[in-house]
């Protein structure tokens, strides 16, 4: 039995017609909806972030009588010169934290960049184990970490000193997961094998490859790793407190016990400091892109 295909009656010989675009009114309504949705999302996010900030500012300046003054901000405004106990505490905590930021970033960069580069070039099979090790601190609560670290820091205190700066070693471990992710993404974005082989064939040493080729090409990733590490170190409280060391967060805590308003003001300043640093880092990160775009 054979079958024949017949054209349905009324069909035209022309091919399929292109789909019609939606009418203008419908498109305008859709665009309006999208705008409303976007504005709503942005408003929610802004409220989520700024209500606590405004509350901090409000709390730090409000008087019981109903008026406002900036007395609780004085230890911060006169940080460099004031001699009161709160200012001294904040000054010491801030200096320790800044020192810790510098030391932690140095350890993190010196440890991670050459190791990650070397593993990619020479022993790619170790990439997964390296990733696992670097992400491990995320899964270990700070309190557990401190239990393990306490005996080490006891020895370290005898060997070096009880100074807070030695917290840099444990902070370098704490920032590993975040720094690793940033640097990994940066190294993924370049053909590091070909670039390093090209540099080597032109006469560059391994150190030269790292300095002249790898670092400039992962600059943005380094900046991002530094920022996230910096934010973590400036905001770290648990380890420092449990190991009886002093940093900015323990200073805020101590000041807060005697003057809650100054502690709130200090928390606000610390947050603003973080925002400024974020802006500065993103400015540096984008400066090369800007130059390239111009050229």
């Amino acid at each position, binding site marked *: 039995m054979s079958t024949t295909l017949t054209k349905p009656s009324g069909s035209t010989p022309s091919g399929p017609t292109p789909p019609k675009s939606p009418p203008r009114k419908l498109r305008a309504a859709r665009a309006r909806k999208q705008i409303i949705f976007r504005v709503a999302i942005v408003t929610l996010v802004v409220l989520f972030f700024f209500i606590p900030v405004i509350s901090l500012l409000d709390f730090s300046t409000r008087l019981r009588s109903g008026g406002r003054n900036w007395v609780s901000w004085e230890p911060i405004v006169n940080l460099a010169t004031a001699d009161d106990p709160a200012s001294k505490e904040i000054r010491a905590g801030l200096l320790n934290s800044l020192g810790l930021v510098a030391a932690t970033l140095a350890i993190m960069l010196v440890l991670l960049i050459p190791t990650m580069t070397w593993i990619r070039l020479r022993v790619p099979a170790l990439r997964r184990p390296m990733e696992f090790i670097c992400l491990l601190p995320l899964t270990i609560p700070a309190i557990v970490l401190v239990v393990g670290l306490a005996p080490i820091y006891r020895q370290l205190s005898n060997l070096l000193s009880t100074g807070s700066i030695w917290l840099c070693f444990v902070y370098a471990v704490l920032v590993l997961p975040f720094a690793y992710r940033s640097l990994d993404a940066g190294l993924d974005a370049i053909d590091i094998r070909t670039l390093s082989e090209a540099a080597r064939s032109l*006469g560059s040493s391994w150190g030269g490859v790292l300095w*002249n080729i790898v670092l400039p090409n992962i600059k943005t990733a380094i900046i991002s790793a530094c920022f996230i590490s910096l934010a973590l170190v400036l905001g770290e409280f648990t380890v420092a407190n449990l190991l009886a060391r002093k940093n900015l967060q323990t200073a805020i805590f101590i000041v807060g016990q005697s003057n809650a308003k100054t502690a709130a003001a200090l928390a606000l300043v610390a947050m603003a400091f973080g925002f400024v640093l974020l802006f500065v880092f993103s400015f540096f990160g984008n400066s090369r892109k800007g130059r390239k775009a111009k050229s």
Partner: protein
Amino acid sequence: MSVATETRNGVAVSLEGLRRSFGDLHALNGMSLDMTPGELVVLLGPSGCGKTTALRVLAGLEDADAGAVVVGGKDISSLPTNKRDMGMVFQAYSLFPHMTARQNVEFGLKLRGVDSAARRKRAAEYLDLVGLAIQMDRYAHQMSGGQQQRVALARALAIQPQVLLLDEPLSALDAKVRVQLRDEIRRIQLEVGITTLFVTHDQEEALAIADRVGVMRAGKIEQIDAPEVIYNNPETSFVAEFIGSTNRLTGQISSGSASVLGCAVPLLPGSPTSGSAVVLVRPEAVRIVPADPATANATVVTTSFLGAHGRVQARLRDDTLVIAQLSSVATAALGIGQSVAVELAPVAALAVAE
């Protein structure tokens, strides 16, 4: 002083009994190669034959398990890559993304302690040599693939290396740019007079550019000769079949020639001397002409128009397919299913035992 006159003369290069294994895979299996000063040798072969490994061993990017690398009479097997004084162009685009074309070319010179003014001058000269003098301030992402490879070539040559190594530098480029750059590489190589090892899997590229072509198989060079010798006088069936197309036709051998399809085909050295054998016949040695169905020995299966010439596939009575390369006029005169007579020109061919 021009780039060509200031560049030192090429040096002799010898790879002696190189062996290199990756686990169970023997990438190089006792490979040896001698290059004369200023010569351009192309290593050609199928994927995994060891050609890139050989080049990387010469560059110092891979360590050989055994064997020696001798350049200019000196054994450099134990020297690290950065001390070998070799310029290299890679298959992947390898320009440093954060540097301009000029800075890329200057990079190797800076490492050699050349002062700033001399560096700039020499970078400009080499970029001019590759035709990119006006684009010297562009970054890699602002250049096409062909331009990037030209800059990479200028960068490799600017350090005035002893040997130039080209690892499939044209494979990422489109067909037209590939041909242009291929000719340019040859022109520059002749102008500079540098000993060059070029690795490719593209036969046309190899035959067009090389002083000698080395056909590699399983970690060894199967045959190394001038392109025309490789093509016309292959020593092994692998070389004959790898380079260009070949028809495998059965014939009877006697007194130095084979009788195939009723035609006498002279045989190349290395062929069997008697009995039945498979003769490897090039498509251009096959003639196909329209014939009466009673006298025809084949039927046309397909015809392809390729511009200057055409390609016809015919099926013999014993079901063997024969490919012929004909003029486009002769190809146009043939139709699919047409009865034809297949004849062979008396061009020397290699025969192998059945």
